[in-house]
């Protein structure tokens, strides 16, 4: 019953052999950590985005088995997937909601890196590839919801095609290349882009984009997957109406990441300016911002202008996204009248958001600095962060209760599927994932408690670590023990060339200074077994 890597059987030896062989591969260049305690997900949003990309790849590949990229059949095949194919509903919903989550997480990831100032000083390549990745992600999501070929998809395709066509000089050629001639070509081409061209570009760019320090937090990944399924259960994605060129369509708006663009288009101003130039300008500004940002400091509080620009962009994104969704509900008015946004009003609001956001940023920085000054004046609390200390007995009890709940959920999900309640089963599977995340977290907590040394008086945390330090972005969050932190070398000093040697020295250090075993374990993850042997 007990699976242990301590016992040497042939399987373990085989796994060890594979692990040793991996030393020659690119994977050993990455410092890959599974955190031993809760760390803020803000630090590894990029990894979460990547996990979603993998989920999308798997579910997408499963959908490819049944989807037919053909004008007449596309919508019907999606309907078959949704209604007839076993688990097709689940897979389609996970695919759809994961795509939304991926765009959302990519945005959050970008803004976190932006405000924490990590995008500059030697990270420019990461930032620039990240922006391109973000644009491609949105294109990927866009081509995805177009190939259903519902009314809404046709609307999106026709707008995209006319925008491409509106680009001066190259536009018509690009339109011919990307869209072909006619609906039949569009569906087939968008399918090709969606399942091959764009993912291949994304993967290639990800190779460049990956930093050397990666965090794979099992509970957080589980929680995100659970949240996606939960959303899929509560808000299952609909099929839309099949596109019929001779019947008037209802009013539809695009997906939420494009409604901002849609709001600009609805001002009925020139297509190229509103649909290509403005978003292009926005992307260009994002691309060059690390080279424009000349502040020596990293914190958002110390870079007022850059922070204000970021806040402005967020405000404008929110306002335009909402505006794109809003359509005058008065059905007595003409359709055009309901759709068109008054450009003067629209652009005035956009302009007004600039001073408002700058003022807001100024206020926030002022408040934050005040709070900082107040914190310095007051005597520090001895404990620093408060922590929940569960007795061991309670950990066991909670774990058993969660396990029982898990069993119950599994049974209910099973019966939900049997009874054809697809939403409910998806919803319950989402909860199963969430509960698993909680269980894993408690398990991790219990394990770290078992390995922790007996409680001792902690030295107060030096103030430098409290600030968001720019240099070690991810490992700072993952190095678990606070007492030993000053001893361990900052990971950024390691260059690729001297990595193995510095890792050896690090593990020597850990063996000399008696660390809690947990740190050792996380180090042992990254140090090849040969060095460990040499060390001991």
């Amino acid at each position: 019953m007990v699976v242990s890597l301590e016992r040497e059987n042939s399987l373990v030896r085989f796994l060890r052999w594979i692990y040793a062989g991996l030393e020659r591969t690119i994977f050993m260049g990455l410092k890959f950590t599974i955190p031993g305690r809760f760390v803020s997900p803000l630090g590894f949003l990029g990894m979460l985005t990547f996990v979603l990309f993998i989920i999308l790849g798997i579910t997408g590949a499963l959908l490819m088995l049944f989807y037919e990229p053909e004008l007449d059949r596309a919508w019907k095949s999606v309907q078959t997937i949704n209604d007839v194919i076993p688990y097709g509903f689940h897979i389609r919903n996970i695919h759809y909601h994961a795509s939304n989550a991926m765009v959302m997480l990519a945005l959050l990831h970008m803004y976190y890196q932006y405000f924490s100032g990590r995008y500059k000083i030697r990270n420019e390549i990461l930032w620039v590839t990240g922006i391109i990745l973000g644009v491609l992600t949105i294109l990927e999501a866009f081509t995805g919801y177009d190939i259903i070929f519902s009314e809404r998809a046709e609307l999106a395709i026709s707008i995209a095609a006319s925008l491409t066509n509106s680009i001066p000089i190259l536009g018509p050629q690009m339109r011919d290349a990307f869209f072909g001639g006619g609906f039949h070509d569009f569906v087939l081409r968008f399918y090709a882009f969606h399942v091959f061209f764009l993912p291949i570009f994304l993967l290639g760019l990800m190779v460049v984009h990956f930093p050397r320090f990666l965090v794979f937090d099992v509970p957080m990944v589980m929680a995100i997957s659970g949240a996606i399924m939960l959303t899929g259960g509560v808000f299952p994605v609909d099929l839309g109406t099949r596109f019929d060129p001779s019947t008037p369509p209802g009013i539809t708006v695009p997906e939420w990441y494009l409604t901002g663009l849609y709001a600009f288009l609805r001002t009925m101003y020139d297509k190229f300016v509103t649909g290509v130039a403005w978003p292009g300008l926005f992307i260009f500004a994002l691309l060059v911002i690390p080279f424009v940002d000349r502040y020596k400091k990293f914190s958002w509080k110390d870079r007022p202008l850059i922070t204000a620009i970021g806040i402005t962009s967020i405000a404008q994104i929110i306002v335009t996204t909402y505006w794109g969704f809003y359509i005058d509900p008065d059905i007595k008015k003409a359709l055009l009248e309901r759709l068109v946004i008054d450009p003067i009003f629209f652009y005035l609001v956009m302009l007004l958001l600039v001073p408002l956001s700058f003022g807001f940023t100024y206020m926030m920085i002022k408040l934050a600095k005040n709070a900082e000054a107040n914190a310095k004046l007051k005597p520090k609390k001895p404990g620093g962060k408060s922590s929940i200390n569960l007795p061991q007995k309670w950990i066991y009890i909670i774990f058993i209760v969660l396990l029982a709940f898990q069993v119950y959920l599994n049974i209910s999900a099973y019966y939900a599927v049997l009874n054809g309640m697809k939403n409910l089963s998806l919803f319950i599977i989402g909860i199963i994932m969430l509960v698993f995340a909680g269980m894993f977290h408690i398990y991790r907590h219990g394990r770290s408690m078992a390995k922790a040394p007996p409680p001792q008086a902690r030295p107060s945390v030096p103030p430098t670590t409290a600030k968001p330090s720019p240099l070690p972005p991810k490992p700072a969050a993952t190095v678990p023990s606070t007492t030993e932190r000053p001893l361990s070398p900052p990971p950024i000093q390691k260059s690729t060339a001297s990595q193995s040697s510095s890792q050896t020295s690090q593990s020597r250090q850990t063996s000399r200074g008696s660390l809690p075993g947990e740190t050792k374990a996380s180090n042992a993850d990254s140090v090849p077994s040969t060095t460990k042997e040499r060390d001991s």
Partner: protein
Amino acid sequence: MTQQTPPNRGGKVSRRDFLKLMAAAGTVMTFVPFVDWGKFLPNPAGNVSARAKVELPNGTQANAKTFPVNSSQAVIYPKTGDIALDKESFRTWQFIRLPEELGGNKNDVSAFRMYSMVCLHLWCLWKYWPDPGRKRGECPCHGSMYDPLTGQAFAGPASLQAPPSNVLARLDLELDNDENLWIKPPNWSPNGNGIVGYGRFLRT
């Protein structure tokens, strides 16, 4: 650790390297014109070099003697024989014989028009309405209206679009000795027959 000055880059290309570069660039430049760049991606299915019949939905060829004045039919062009492809909006054309006041009773080509049925606004299929007082193309989706004489949108959202996106793509027709109607080989460009779904510049 002493700071080392970076090696001086730029301005130092040896003659050998320069010649190598020139040779490589020359080789590439020699072969570039022979590669048919960018011809792979556009779909050549729309290119037709011979004239084609105006084939009505009942399978007969349209004839100037029999086709009624102030009426219209949907015609598939270019016809492939593939059921799915022939249902495609982008191959659907509106074949119109103009009403009498616009010269529809003449027995020559000027009485006939053939426009792409794909509305220039959002690609629904518009249709010609011969009712008295209407006599225009109307799109059911957002109400764009088209002038049957020129194919120009005069009302609705399509009329607000900048040229060439306010004039429908059209096909040129010709009559043979039996007064059967034929479609001339098209030139799919905004200055020629226009582009289906995107429009055409109106020649004045």
